């Protein structure tokens, strides 16, 4: 998603992993970890402001 934001023209892109995110069901969480699934917070700006 970082790359898509950049390609769409966003600037000052920042991302961080959401620390407490996990799935409630253990089987789902295990699958998520196997696929490298994580929750992230992203901020970015559209250029052109003052």
């Amino acid at each position, binding site marked *: *998603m970082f790359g*898509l*934001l950049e*390609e*769409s*023209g*966003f600037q000052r892109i*920042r991302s961080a992993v*959401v620390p*407490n*995110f*996990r*799935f*409630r*069901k253990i089987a*789902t969480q295990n699958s998520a970890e196997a*696929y*490298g*699934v*994580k*929750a*992230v*917070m*992203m*901020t*970015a*700006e*559209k*250029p*052109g*402001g*003052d």
Partner: protein
Amino acid sequence: MTGSIEAQAGLEGEFKDEIIRMYQNVADNPEGEFHFFHGRQAADMFAYDAHSLDEAPQGAVASFAVVGNPHLRSNVQPGDTVLDLGSSAGLDAIIASRSTGPTGKVIGVDLNPSMYLKAQAHAAASGSGMECHEGRMESIPLTDESVDVVISNGVINLSFQKRKVIEEMFRVLRPGGRISITDIVSAK
């Protein structure tokens, strides 16, 4: 080629129906068990302000299904126009409206027609002047450069057209506008 485009459109349609069904189920049966945390438990997990949660319509809190807290870095200011993309039952929009104040505005857009009506009812109950629209995040029903901040919480990953969603966020933002989103990504 045409066949594969049709196949993807068919799959996208089925997926859309499944998304509507799943989140409708959360809203209609908030006491139910799902593969994700929801309700007050999820909000507490992601450090939502307890006072805001206590004051919000409890129907909006109970059906809250999210992956993080976009308010932590949204820096919404009084007078801002905020778009909540995938507003569901309206809790994130109601919380954002506390920061915009009466001179600002929060607009919720959701795919599910009954969900945006629910958000509208919750917003009215909370005294928030939230404006709700039924719409798709790949075609946001707002004019160009009409929004100061876009928040979104766990919905962009559900789109088959993520590039289009991001281009749409860029389109509706004013120059200098910003996004604060939380979502699921996969490293593989």
